[in-house]
Protein backbone atom coordinates (compact mmCIF):
# COMPACT_ATOMS: atom_id res chain seq x y z
CA UNK A 1 0.00 0.00 0.00
CA UNK A 2 1.23 3.46 -0.81
CA UNK A 3 0.05 6.19 1.51
CA UNK A 4 0.03 9.33 -0.57
CA UNK A 5 -2.41 11.58 1.24
CA UNK A 6 0.15 14.11 2.24
CA UNK A 7 -0.42 17.59 3.57
CA UNK A 8 -0.62 19.74 0.51
CA UNK A 9 -0.12 23.25 1.53
CA UNK A 10 -2.89 25.79 1.13
CA UNK A 11 -2.75 29.50 0.64
CA UNK A 12 -6.20 29.98 2.16
CA UNK A 13 -5.18 31.42 5.49
CA UNK A 14 -1.47 31.71 5.00
CA UNK A 15 -0.07 35.09 5.60
CA UNK A 16 0.73 37.09 2.52
CA UNK A 17 3.87 39.19 2.51
CA UNK A 18 1.58 42.17 3.16
CA UNK A 19 0.83 41.06 6.69
CA UNK A 20 4.34 41.86 7.76
CA UNK A 21 5.39 44.25 5.04
CA UNK A 22 8.92 45.23 4.49
CA UNK A 23 9.43 48.37 6.62
CA UNK A 24 11.17 49.94 3.63
CA UNK A 25 8.01 49.58 1.54
CA UNK A 26 6.15 52.10 3.68
CA UNK A 27 3.14 49.76 4.02
CA UNK A 28 1.53 49.32 7.42
CA UNK A 29 1.23 45.82 8.86
CA UNK A 30 -2.19 44.46 9.83
CA UNK A 31 -1.78 45.30 13.54
CA UNK A 32 -0.69 48.84 12.64
CA UNK A 33 -3.70 49.27 10.37
CA UNK A 34 -6.01 47.92 13.06
CA UNK A 35 -4.62 50.43 15.54
CA UNK A 36 -5.41 53.19 13.07
CA UNK A 37 -8.92 51.79 12.51
CA UNK A 38 -9.57 51.72 16.24
CA UNK A 39 -8.50 55.36 16.38
CA UNK A 40 -11.24 56.21 13.86
CA UNK A 41 -9.32 55.92 10.58
CA UNK A 42 -11.96 54.04 8.55
CA UNK A 43 -10.05 54.22 5.22
CA UNK A 44 -7.33 52.11 6.90
CA UNK A 45 -9.92 49.35 7.08
CA UNK A 46 -10.34 49.53 3.30
CA UNK A 47 -6.62 48.70 3.03
CA UNK A 48 -7.20 45.59 5.17
CA UNK A 49 -10.17 44.57 3.02
CA UNK A 50 -8.20 44.93 -0.22
CA UNK A 51 -5.27 43.04 1.30
CA UNK A 52 -7.26 39.98 2.36
CA UNK A 53 -10.36 39.85 0.14
CA UNK A 54 -8.97 37.48 -2.50
CA UNK A 55 -7.82 34.90 0.05
CA UNK A 56 -11.15 35.06 1.87
CA UNK A 57 -13.20 34.82 -1.32
CA UNK A 58 -11.31 31.72 -2.37
CA UNK A 59 -11.73 30.28 1.12
CA UNK A 60 -15.51 30.78 1.14
CA UNK A 61 -16.14 30.00 -2.54
CA UNK A 62 -16.55 26.20 -2.29
CA UNK A 63 -18.89 26.57 0.68
CA UNK A 64 -21.60 28.61 -1.07
CA UNK A 65 -23.74 28.32 -4.19
CA UNK A 66 -22.69 31.33 -6.22
CA UNK A 67 -19.89 33.83 -6.54
CA UNK A 68 -22.32 36.55 -5.45
CA UNK A 69 -23.01 34.59 -2.27
CA UNK A 70 -19.28 34.36 -1.63
CA UNK A 71 -18.90 38.12 -2.11
CA UNK A 72 -21.85 38.85 0.18
CA UNK A 73 -20.48 36.54 2.86
CA UNK A 74 -16.99 38.04 2.75
CA UNK A 75 -18.36 41.57 2.75
CA UNK A 76 -20.54 40.78 5.78
CA UNK A 77 -17.57 39.15 7.51
CA UNK A 78 -15.49 42.31 7.08
CA UNK A 79 -18.34 44.50 8.36
CA UNK A 80 -18.74 42.19 11.36
CA UNK A 81 -14.98 42.33 11.96
CA UNK A 82 -15.17 46.13 11.91
CA UNK A 83 -18.01 46.06 14.47
CA UNK A 84 -15.96 43.76 16.67
CA UNK A 85 -12.64 45.56 16.09
CA UNK A 86 -12.13 46.37 19.75
CA UNK A 87 -12.58 42.73 20.71
CA UNK A 88 -9.87 41.38 18.40
CA UNK A 89 -7.02 40.38 20.69
CA UNK A 90 -4.52 39.29 18.07
CA UNK A 91 -4.29 35.64 19.21
CA UNK A 92 -4.66 34.64 15.57
CA UNK A 93 -3.84 36.71 12.51
CA UNK A 94 -6.42 39.21 11.26
CA UNK A 95 -6.99 37.05 8.18
CA UNK A 96 -7.64 33.92 10.23
CA UNK A 97 -10.01 35.86 12.48
CA UNK A 98 -12.07 37.29 9.60
CA UNK A 99 -11.81 33.95 7.78
CA UNK A 100 -13.43 32.21 10.74
CA UNK A 101 -16.29 34.73 10.75
CA UNK A 102 -16.71 34.29 6.99
CA UNK A 103 -16.68 30.48 7.09
CA UNK A 104 -19.39 30.30 9.74
CA UNK A 105 -21.51 32.86 7.88
CA UNK A 106 -21.05 30.79 4.71
CA UNK A 107 -22.18 27.63 6.48
CA UNK A 108 -25.29 29.41 7.74
CA UNK A 109 -26.09 30.52 4.20
CA UNK A 110 -25.31 27.10 2.73
CA UNK A 111 -28.01 25.52 4.89
CA UNK A 112 -30.54 27.23 2.66
CA UNK A 113 -28.60 27.39 -0.61
CA UNK A 114 -26.42 24.40 -1.26
CA UNK A 115 -23.00 24.74 -2.91
CA UNK A 116 -22.85 23.75 -6.54
CA UNK A 117 -26.50 24.58 -7.23
CA UNK A 118 -26.02 27.86 -9.03
CA UNK A 119 -28.28 28.29 -12.06
CA UNK A 120 -27.70 24.80 -13.40
CA UNK A 121 -24.11 25.58 -14.21
CA UNK A 122 -22.70 23.39 -11.47
CA UNK A 123 -21.39 20.75 -13.78
CA UNK A 124 -19.56 23.25 -15.93
CA UNK A 125 -17.39 24.03 -12.96
CA UNK A 126 -15.98 20.55 -12.53
CA UNK A 127 -12.23 20.70 -12.25
CA UNK A 128 -11.54 17.46 -14.07
CA UNK A 129 -12.97 17.35 -17.58
CA UNK A 130 -13.00 13.55 -17.47
CA UNK A 131 -15.37 13.48 -14.47
CA UNK A 132 -18.71 11.78 -14.92
CA UNK A 133 -21.42 14.47 -14.53
CA UNK A 134 -23.90 12.17 -12.76
CA UNK A 135 -21.20 10.99 -10.38
CA UNK A 136 -20.13 14.54 -9.72
CA UNK A 137 -23.67 15.56 -8.81
CA UNK A 138 -24.03 12.51 -6.57
CA UNK A 139 -20.82 13.36 -4.73
CA UNK A 140 -21.82 17.00 -4.28
CA UNK A 141 -25.24 15.93 -3.00
CA UNK A 142 -23.49 13.60 -0.55
CA UNK A 143 -21.37 16.51 0.67
CA UNK A 144 -24.42 18.76 1.04
CA UNK A 145 -26.10 16.09 3.16
CA UNK A 146 -23.25 16.06 5.67
CA UNK A 147 -23.91 17.86 8.94
CA UNK A 148 -22.05 21.18 9.21
CA UNK A 149 -19.42 19.88 11.61
CA UNK A 150 -18.37 17.21 9.06
CA UNK A 151 -19.02 19.15 5.85
CA UNK A 152 -16.87 22.09 6.81
CA UNK A 153 -13.61 20.15 7.41
CA UNK A 154 -14.26 17.84 4.43
CA UNK A 155 -14.80 20.74 2.03
CA UNK A 156 -11.85 22.72 3.36
CA UNK A 157 -9.61 19.65 3.19
CA UNK A 158 -10.53 18.24 -0.21
CA UNK A 159 -11.89 21.23 -2.11
CA UNK A 160 -9.63 23.91 -0.63
CA UNK A 161 -6.68 21.60 0.02
CA UNK A 162 -6.09 22.90 3.52
CA UNK A 163 -4.27 20.66 5.97
CA UNK A 164 -5.85 19.50 9.22
CA UNK A 165 -3.57 21.86 11.12
CA UNK A 166 -4.69 24.84 9.05
CA UNK A 167 -8.37 23.88 9.42
CA UNK A 168 -7.95 23.53 13.18
CA UNK A 169 -6.41 26.99 13.38
CA UNK A 170 -9.09 28.53 11.20
CA UNK A 171 -12.04 27.01 13.05
CA UNK A 172 -10.55 27.09 16.53
CA UNK A 173 -10.95 23.32 16.89
CA UNK A 174 -8.54 20.74 18.30
CA UNK A 175 -6.42 19.21 15.54
CA UNK A 176 -7.49 15.69 16.56
CA UNK A 177 -11.13 16.78 16.28
CA UNK A 178 -10.48 17.85 12.70
CA UNK A 179 -8.86 14.48 11.91
CA UNK A 180 -11.81 12.55 13.31
CA UNK A 181 -14.40 14.70 11.58
CA UNK A 182 -12.68 14.45 8.20
CA UNK A 183 -12.64 10.69 8.57
CA UNK A 184 -16.27 10.50 9.66
CA UNK A 185 -17.26 12.82 6.83
CA UNK A 186 -15.49 10.59 4.32
CA UNK A 187 -17.18 7.51 5.75
CA UNK A 188 -20.56 9.16 5.45
CA UNK A 189 -19.89 10.27 1.85
CA UNK A 190 -18.84 6.73 1.00
CA UNK A 191 -21.99 5.28 2.59
CA UNK A 192 -24.20 7.77 0.75
CA UNK A 193 -22.55 6.89 -2.53
CA UNK A 194 -23.06 3.22 -1.76
CA UNK A 195 -19.37 2.44 -1.70
CA UNK A 196 -18.03 -0.97 -0.81
CA UNK A 197 -17.79 -1.88 2.85
CA UNK A 198 -14.45 -2.94 4.19
CA UNK A 199 -14.53 -6.15 6.28
Amino acid at each position, binding site marked *: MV*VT*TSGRSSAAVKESPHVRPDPRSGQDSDPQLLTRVRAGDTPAFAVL*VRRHQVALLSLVDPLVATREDAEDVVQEAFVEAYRQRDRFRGDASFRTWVGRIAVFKAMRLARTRAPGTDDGAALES*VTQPSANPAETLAVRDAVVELPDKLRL*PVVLRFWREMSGREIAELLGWEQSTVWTRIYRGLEQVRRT*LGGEEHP
Partner: protein
Amino acid sequence: MTCGEAKRLMHKALAGDASAEERERLADHAENCERCAAEWHTITGAVDALQAARPEQRPTDRDLSAGVIARIAREANGPAQWASRVAEVLASRPVQAAGAVAATAICALILWLATPAPQALAALLNAGPRVGY
Protein backbone atom coordinates in the same frame (compact mmCIF):
# COMPACT_ATOMS: atom_id res chain seq x y z
CA MET B 1 1.86 -1.08 15.27
CA THR B 2 -1.64 -2.11 16.35
CA CYS B 3 -4.71 -1.68 14.15
CA GLY B 4 -5.92 1.03 16.57
CA GLU B 5 -2.70 2.99 16.09
CA ALA B 6 -2.96 2.45 12.34
CA LYS B 7 -6.47 3.87 12.35
CA ARG B 8 -5.34 6.98 14.21
CA LEU B 9 -2.55 7.40 11.66
CA MET B 10 -5.09 7.02 8.86
CA HIS B 11 -7.08 9.92 10.32
CA LYS B 12 -3.92 12.01 10.50
CA ALA B 13 -2.80 11.05 6.99
CA LEU B 14 -6.18 11.83 5.44
CA ALA B 15 -6.02 15.27 7.04
CA GLY B 16 -2.61 15.77 5.46
CA ASP B 17 -0.92 16.08 8.84
CA ALA B 18 1.09 12.83 8.90
CA SER B 19 4.84 13.01 8.37
CA ALA B 20 6.58 10.97 5.67
CA GLU B 21 7.84 8.63 8.36
CA GLU B 22 4.31 8.12 9.75
CA ARG B 23 2.92 7.44 6.28
CA GLU B 24 5.65 4.87 5.75
CA ARG B 25 4.83 3.13 9.05
CA LEU B 26 1.16 3.07 8.08
CA ALA B 27 2.03 1.56 4.69
CA ASP B 28 4.22 -1.07 6.37
CA HIS B 29 1.36 -2.02 8.70
CA ALA B 30 -1.12 -2.27 5.84
CA GLU B 31 1.25 -4.57 3.93
CA ASN B 32 0.67 -7.12 6.65
CA CYS B 33 -2.92 -6.31 7.66
CA GLU B 34 -5.61 -7.08 5.16
CA ARG B 35 -8.30 -5.36 7.19
CA CYS B 36 -6.47 -2.04 7.48
CA ALA B 37 -5.43 -2.19 3.82
CA ALA B 38 -9.06 -2.68 2.81
CA GLU B 39 -10.19 0.18 5.04
CA TRP B 40 -7.55 2.49 3.57
CA HIS B 41 -8.49 1.47 0.03
CA THR B 42 -12.18 2.17 0.68
CA ILE B 43 -11.72 5.50 2.35
CA THR B 44 -9.25 6.79 -0.24
CA GLY B 45 -11.84 5.86 -2.86
CA ALA B 46 -14.11 8.46 -1.24
CA VAL B 47 -11.23 10.96 -1.33
CA ASP B 48 -10.76 10.34 -5.06
CA ALA B 49 -14.48 10.83 -5.69
CA LEU B 50 -14.50 14.08 -3.72
CA GLN B 51 -11.48 15.46 -5.50
CA ALA B 52 -12.98 14.59 -8.90
CA ALA B 53 -16.13 16.53 -7.95
CA ARG B 54 -14.28 19.57 -6.70
CA PRO B 55 -15.89 22.76 -8.04
CA GLU B 56 -13.59 24.95 -10.05
CA GLN B 57 -12.46 28.07 -8.28
CA ARG B 58 -14.60 30.99 -9.46
CA PRO B 59 -12.88 34.26 -10.28
CA THR B 60 -12.36 36.44 -7.24
CA ASP B 61 -11.25 39.71 -8.73
CA ARG B 62 -13.93 42.09 -7.49
CA ASP B 63 -12.88 44.79 -5.05
CA LEU B 64 -15.19 44.62 -2.03
CA SER B 65 -13.63 47.48 -0.09
CA ALA B 66 -15.98 50.21 -1.39
CA GLY B 67 -19.05 48.14 -0.45
CA VAL B 68 -17.66 47.35 3.00
CA ILE B 69 -16.81 50.99 3.75
CA ALA B 70 -20.24 52.13 2.47
CA ARG B 71 -21.97 49.69 4.83
CA ILE B 72 -19.81 50.80 7.73
CA ALA B 73 -20.69 54.42 6.95
CA ARG B 74 -24.42 53.59 6.78
CA GLU B 75 -24.23 51.88 10.16
CA ALA B 76 -22.30 54.82 11.59
CA ASN B 77 -25.19 57.12 10.64
CA GLY B 78 -27.85 54.70 11.84
CA PRO B 79 -30.11 54.96 14.93
CA ALA B 80 -27.61 53.31 17.26
CA GLN B 81 -25.01 55.90 16.39
CA TRP B 82 -27.51 58.75 16.92
CA ALA B 83 -28.42 57.35 20.32
CA SER B 84 -24.80 57.18 21.36
CA ARG B 85 -24.19 60.74 20.12
CA VAL B 86 -27.17 62.01 22.17
CA ALA B 87 -25.81 60.15 25.18
CA GLU B 88 -22.38 61.74 24.62
CA VAL B 89 -23.89 65.25 24.44
CA LEU B 90 -25.97 64.66 27.57
CA ALA B 91 -22.90 63.45 29.42
CA SER B 92 -20.73 66.37 28.31
CA ARG B 93 -23.27 69.14 29.23
CA PRO B 94 -25.22 67.83 32.21
CA VAL B 95 -26.71 71.20 33.30
CA GLN B 96 -27.98 72.10 29.85
CA ALA B 97 -29.20 68.54 29.38
CA ALA B 98 -31.14 68.67 32.67
CA GLY B 99 -32.66 72.02 31.61
CA ALA B 100 -33.68 70.60 28.24
CA VAL B 101 -35.24 67.54 29.86
CA ALA B 102 -37.13 69.74 32.37
CA ALA B 103 -38.39 72.07 29.60
CA THR B 104 -39.52 69.08 27.52
CA ALA B 105 -41.33 67.62 30.53
CA ILE B 106 -43.12 70.96 31.26
CA CYS B 107 -44.20 71.28 27.60
CA ALA B 108 -45.48 67.71 27.63
CA LEU B 109 -47.43 68.38 30.85
CA ILE B 110 -49.02 71.54 29.41
CA LEU B 111 -49.99 69.70 26.24
CA TRP B 112 -51.47 66.86 28.25
CA LEU B 113 -53.53 69.23 30.42
CA ALA B 114 -54.72 71.20 27.40
CA THR B 115 -55.82 68.11 25.49
CA PRO B 116 -59.26 66.72 26.36
CA ALA B 117 -59.24 63.16 27.63
CA PRO B 118 -60.73 60.53 25.28
CA GLN B 119 -63.76 60.05 27.54
CA ALA B 120 -64.43 63.79 27.53
CA LEU B 121 -64.12 63.84 23.74
CA ALA B 122 -66.54 60.95 23.44
CA ALA B 123 -68.98 62.72 25.75
CA LEU B 124 -68.76 65.87 23.63
CA LEU B 125 -69.38 63.91 20.43
CA ASN B 126 -72.34 62.08 21.92
CA ALA B 127 -73.84 65.25 23.39
CA GLY B 128 -76.60 67.01 21.50
CA PRO B 129 -80.23 66.43 20.82
CA ARG B 130 -81.26 62.81 20.64
CA VAL B 131 -83.82 62.12 18.03
CA GLY B 132 -86.09 59.24 18.63
CA TYR B 133 -87.39 57.17 15.75
